[in-house]
């Protein structure tokens, strides 16, 4: 690492002792990135931006929030009415939470479509699933903090799931609650953990990026880069492309925050928590609905809980379930069909999770749940063996040149 590459003497002096500028230079200018990444590769940086927005707005909200069952709801209303621009900060926090999940779900489906989880990126994928789990825990606890009706009853329903664990279940739930019902100790510990976990996420994000930089990004063709002709430097090409994505993201976020701030929330959460009155339908936040549908699809409580967690756990072993040597769905015609079926299945589960658990919805939930597991446990392993894939291009440059030739 030659210090001579920086002309500014102060930068040179610092870099010699603390090579932060070399690191930045390496990431921006030397780190080779496939030249054919499409806009589906924007969601990583957007997820990072979402995390930053959540942490910044969250820290500001915590300055005016009171974690106590008697004051939490009112303190949120104080933020909405009396704190300068408090309404803006809170609406950004609320809506970015939803956007964070939209972005992460797209990021996950991008990985599924282009086989980004395959060797040598298994750990990169697994760290991503860890981030996803931490996000779900953080979001769940954050939703409890305003202490509205859905906060309280959502917390009650979800924490009660742990009572399904044989023998120790009841003790685990008491431990989670800090008492014998969802009450002040539950709220205060959720607040504490809700403040802590984003920083854990940030830590795992660093690992996620370290693992990413080991082999670089996967790409839409899914073959490895073969040399300089296949790659471009991250800056300025992907910095500007990420900025386009960020502009689009912020535009959509602004539309939600300023014109539909409560569209992704539930009206019941503007009613203060009342332990004596159960809402007609207890539904979690929209981003949990697919998992909620799986939970309710099983008539047995423990079975439902296991299946719900299993739906995420299965993602950890995905790199070993899909043994096809071809990464990208572009060259896997049969896999591509099943990918879209899974996508529709996930949306269907989301829809069913929001419907009352009765009649046809229960049946449909069961079918959709069965399909979800069938996809990962049976279809993917079989496709790895039986699918005849299309021939792969020799290098990334080749098809890129070919398409340009056709278009021109």
């Amino acid at each position, binding site marked *: 690492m030659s210090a001579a590459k920086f002309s500014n003497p102060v930068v040179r002096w610092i870099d010699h002792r603390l090579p932060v500028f070399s690191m930045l230079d390496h990431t921006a200018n030397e780190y080779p990135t496939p030249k054919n990444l499409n806009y589906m590769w924007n969601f990583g940086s957007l997820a990072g931006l979402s995390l930053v927005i959540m942490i910044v707005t969250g820290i500001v909200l915590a300055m005016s929030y009171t974690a106590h069952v008697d004051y939490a709801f*009112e303190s949120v209303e104080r933020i909405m009415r009396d704190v300068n621009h408090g309404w803006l900060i809170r609406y950004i926090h609320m809506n970015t939470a939803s956007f964070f999940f939209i972005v992460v779900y797209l990021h996950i489906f991008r990985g599924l479509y282009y086989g980004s989880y395959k060797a040598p990126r298994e750990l990169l994928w697994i760290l991503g699933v860890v981030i996803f789990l931490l996000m779900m825990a953080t979001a769940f606890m954050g939703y409890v903090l305003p202490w509205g009706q859905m906060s309280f009853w959502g917390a009650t329903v979800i924490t009660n799931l742990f009572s399904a664990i044989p023998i120790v279940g009841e003790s685990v739930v008491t431990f989670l609650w800090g008492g014998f019902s969802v009450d002040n100790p539950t709220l205060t510990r959720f607040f504490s953990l809700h403040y802590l976990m984003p920083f854990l996420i940030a830590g795992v994000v660093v690992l996620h990026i370290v693992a990413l930089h080991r082999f670089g990004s996967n790409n839409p063709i899914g073959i490895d880069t073969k040399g300089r002709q296949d790659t471009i430097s991250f800056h300025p*090409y992907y910095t*500007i492309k990420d900025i*386009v994505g960020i502009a689009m993201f912020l535009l959509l976020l602004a539309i939600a925050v*300023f014109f539909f701030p409560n569209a992704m929330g539930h*009206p*019941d959460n*503007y009613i203060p928590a009342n332990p004596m009155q159960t809402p*007609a339908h207890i539904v979690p936040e929209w981003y949990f609905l697919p998992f909620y549908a799986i939970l309710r699809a099983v008539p047995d409580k423990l079975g439902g809980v296991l299946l719900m967690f299993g739906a995420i756990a299965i993602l950890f072993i995905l790199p070993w379930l899909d043994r096809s040597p071809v990464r990208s769905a572009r060259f896997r015609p049969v896999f591509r069909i099943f990918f879209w079926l899974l996508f529709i299945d996930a949306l269907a589960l989301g829809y069913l999770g929001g419907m009352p658990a009765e009649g046809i919805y229960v049946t449909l939930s069961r079918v959709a749940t069965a399909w979800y597991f069938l996809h990962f446990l049976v279809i993917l392993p079989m496709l790895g063996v039986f699918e005849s894939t299309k021939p792969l291009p020799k290098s990334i440059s080749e098809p890129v040149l070919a398409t340009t030739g056709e278009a021109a």
Partner: protein
Amino acid sequence: MRKFIFATVMSLMSAVGMPGAASAAGGGDVTLLKNDWSFAGIFGHYDKASMQRGFQVYLEVCAGCHSMEYMAFRNLADLGYNEAEIKAIAAEYEVQDGPDEDGEMFMRPARPADRIPSPYRNDNEARANNNGALPPDLSLIAKARAHGPDYLYSLLVGYQDAPASMEVPDGMYYNNAYSGNMIAMPQPIYGDDVEYADGASTSAEALSADVTHFLMWAAEPKLEVRKRIGVAAVFFLSIFLIMSYLAKRRIWADVH
């Protein structure tokens, strides 16, 4: 690839829309009347005259049973009242203060900084006076119900004679907007319940619309500034998006 992005975005948008639709589902036959509210839409704003009339309806019709916990008299400035008017409105109420130097609590006229006093000392008194039913606090009611303002309006004008097939017990009333159609609140507005100083219509529909307007403001007092900033933000970000896209095209021109 384009198709993939398009399909993804479209299906996600419908996925996002879903829980709202799901939460709207209630029991019974529910009639929802759609109104053209001035606060709806991108450039939405509150109608001060309507809010002042609505506030009067609240005071004369609703306030006997329903509190507005999160409203202070000073907030009424948003309705177009000046400081002297707000002081006068507040002074009509007595609030408890203290302790004084002798350690005694005492009553004094309310000031603009005070919250609007509740009609009952606690929920138990409220229930005892209302046949066991608890009149909900109204400060957030327009956000705490699906389709807030349209629902409130529909509820207020939704009192009817029950169909012959339906047995309505004592202390319950038939309402075609309420989930299950049986509500414990007696019909509050019949038309001409209050006298407006500005000569606006006092039909049941007009009074209901005015008080709904007021309640929407109470639930979302920052709506106007929110939408105003929103228009500027969307305008700025649209230009930012176009500029960054053009810059991207230019930078990428030499790659393909």
